């Protein structure tokens, strides 16, 4: 062989051997793991088969381009092992919150008016959070590098976490207030109540944003920030005003997961912006999707009790997040 490489002993995977520093556990187990990005054809079946066409169009044909998506690194550097350690601790904290508030008779102290608000604005959220779970899973299938895939995967898992905790609270509230429709009316409210129609439209449309780059923008730069600001933060503040310390603390705990999502979203935007042309692509998608995010925040916040300028705050904060990435409108 004329160009046989030097097969000297390795200290790490050959693909990481070129870097000067010793690779971290994160790099050893997370980098360059997709085989469908190796060749022009993603999958080793006929080129005109559905799935090859889907990946060629929506992943490889995306207007969002980078010569080396595998250069992406999760700023939090999470691997499966450390994710479970982190979230087991977080969930133990949530167990503690639930146990403690249950013991102190917290729910019995909530006003009838606030219970109505919870039935309208809190427990139907499991549909929205599940849609985010599904949407994140689409990114898992379609992102062009394993390090991006992994971030989306943990993000999907985080949503199931809050779908589950919301379901838990739905049941608990139904025991305290059996006449408020907890566990019964959520689907109808999600499908019909004006407070949810903005988020429902946003998520239904995001779910079919099949270009992987557009999916990322619709989900991580618009939908999730809108949910963080309107649902997590503004509903949390309303809970505080209503004396619902439990919901306030649950939503604060949810916020910690959102911080990680924003960290990796920012890192991915920064990587994308290394390539000429991507700024315009991202800006165009933001221009397309952000109005839907704003409308969702408007509709949701309008139904918050004593909302004040909640909608404006929510929209400003979501916009500020994007502006911080260089993608303000």
């Amino acid at each position, binding site marked *: *062989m004329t160009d*046989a490489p030097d*097969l000297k*002993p*390795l*200290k*790490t*995977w050959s693909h990481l051997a070129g870097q000067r520093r010793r690779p971290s*556990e994160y790099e*050893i*187990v997370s980098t*360059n*793991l*997709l*085989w469908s990005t190796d060749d022009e054809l993603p*999958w*080793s*079946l*006929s080129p005109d*088969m*559905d*799935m*090859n066409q*889907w990946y060629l169009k929506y992943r490889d044909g995306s207007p969002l381009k980078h010569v080396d998506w595998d250069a992406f690194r999760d700023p939090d550097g999470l691997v*499966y*092992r450390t*994710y479970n350690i982190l979230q*087991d601790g977080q*969930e133990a904290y*949530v167990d503690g919150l*639930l*146990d403690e508030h249950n013991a102190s008779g917290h729910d019995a102290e909530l006003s009838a008016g606030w219970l109505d608000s919870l039935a309208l604005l809190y427990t139907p959220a*499991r*549909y929205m959070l*599940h849609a985010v*779970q*599904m949407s994140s*899973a*689409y990114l*898992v*299938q379609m992102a062009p590098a*394993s390090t991006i*895939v992994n971030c989306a*995967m943990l993000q*999907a*898992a985080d949503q*199931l*976490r809050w*779908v*589950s905790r919301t*379901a*838990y609270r*739905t*049941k*608990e509230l139904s025991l305290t207030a059996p006449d408020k429709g907890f*566990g019964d009316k959520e689907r109808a409210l*999600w499908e019909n109540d004006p407070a949810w129609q903005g988020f*429902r439209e946003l998520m239904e*449309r995001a779910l*079919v944003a099949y270009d992987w780059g557009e999916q990322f923008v619709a989900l991580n730069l618009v939908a999730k920030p809108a949910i963080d600001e309107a649902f997590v933060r503004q509903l949390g503040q309303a809970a505080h005003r209503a004396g619902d310390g439990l919901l306030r603390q649950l939503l604060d705990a949810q916020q910690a997961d959102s911080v990680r999502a924003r960290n990796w979203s920012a890192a991915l935007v920064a990587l994308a912006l290394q390539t000429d042309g991507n700024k315009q692509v991202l800006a165009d998608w933001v221009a397309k999707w952000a109005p839907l995010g704003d409308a969702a925040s408007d509709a949701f916040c309008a139904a918050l009790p004593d909302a004040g300028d909640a909608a404006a705050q929510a929209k400003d904060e979501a916009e500020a997040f994007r502006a911080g990435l260089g993608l303000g409108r």
Partner: protein
Amino acid sequence: MALLDRSDWYDIARDTNWTPGYVPREEIFPPQLSDPYGIPVEQWETFDEPYKVSYREYVKIQREKDSSAYSVKAALSRSKFHDDLDEGWASVLKLHYGAVALTEYQACQFQARMVRFGPSPSMRNMATYGMLDELRHAQLQLFFPHELVSRDRQYDWAHEAAHTKNWAVLGGRHAIDDIMMCRDAVTGTIMVSFAFETGLTNLQMVGLSTDAANMGDFTFANMITSIQSDEARHAQLGSPAIEIMINNGKKKEAQQAVDVAFWRMWRLFAITVGIPMDYYIPLDQRHLSFKEFMHEWIIRQYDRQVRDLGLETPWYWDLLADDIENHHHCQQGGIWSWRPTVWWNPPGAVGPREREWLEEKYPGWNDSYGTYWDVITDNLLHGREEKTHPECIPIICNMCQIPISNRPGEAWKARALQLEHEGRRYNFCTEPCRWIFTTDPDRYKHHLTIVDRMYSGEIDPPTLDNVLTYMGIGVVSEGGRDGHDYSWVDGFRTQAAE
């Protein structure tokens, strides 16, 4: 003071289907990614997973499992185990990691398809844990071999194999792309969760962990057992999907999906499991023959599971019984002869004692496979090592991508299993591989085997060096050699002297 039981709220968490109003449902759930069988969504909402877990339980249990697996590894990493490791077992590890680590990773994307496009909310939630499980399996099976690359570059294949075009990898990728990566959520779960994971990975894991423990490789044994405990949970996604299909008049489709997937994976598993069990593991550490194992775990148990679900025994069951007697023996001969093309060091391991064992486990082995090894043994005894390297190029099956071969000796049943399709002639190893092609010729017709690539100009010119380079040999690491440096022929020298 109390926390609710999981069962109090679990049904609420899996009540998340809604009727879309802004986008048609079939755009959110395109049939080719979700359910191509047109089963009503209310039917999918009856999906009830046999094994239930909550997120809270999941992160706690998995944290504990990881803590155990990683601490066993840490505790044993300073042991001398790998210093004087039998190369037969090292070959098991190299073959295993190269075949499995990145396959597990692609399975994350497969599970994600169910999370996004599964028509049942239960399926979507359970697949979320399945997706995390696959991430775990990929990361464990990268982290563990990583420390071995400083001993031996062949362990680099744990990460690199799937990125090469090694002939063995082409076969693995073709099968995995077919049954796992390129199917809708419903067909995928039947093929992977049921046929592959329920049917076959149990075989691999239970068998391998026992063998590993016998070998004293407690790190590997413990890791595999831990992985198997996840698999036992998420494999249960398959059976409720099959039940719903049968209840909605789609038994024939479910049966075909199960039968296609099982056969495809069987052809690979016989190589990754059967050869190690009957050849690579040193004789004194073998606990069962592959055949005994297959009859106990597959012929009996899988068939019973299939029928319990309301499906039929696969039509090729008799052919499977025949393949159990032959396929892995053929491939042991082939892989050993073509050892420079693989990333492990396959031992021939057919000395007098081993042959006695093989004859006992597979009556007639000496008169058939034995005749093949007689020639090789004779060449080695007489210093003609070069004659143990074949010069002919095998014919490769256009479905499983494995060289076509059959039982040598008097029982030789040579037959041509071919098919003309749109002007191209396709060759198959067995009837089921040909049948799979006919179920969807458009899906398979373009694929080129490694040998096709030598003649199509993709490997140009197709010299031995170029072919090896194309396959990653001499690039990722050196290719294979006899794992025991032919020491297994020594027994015949002794016999001759006596």
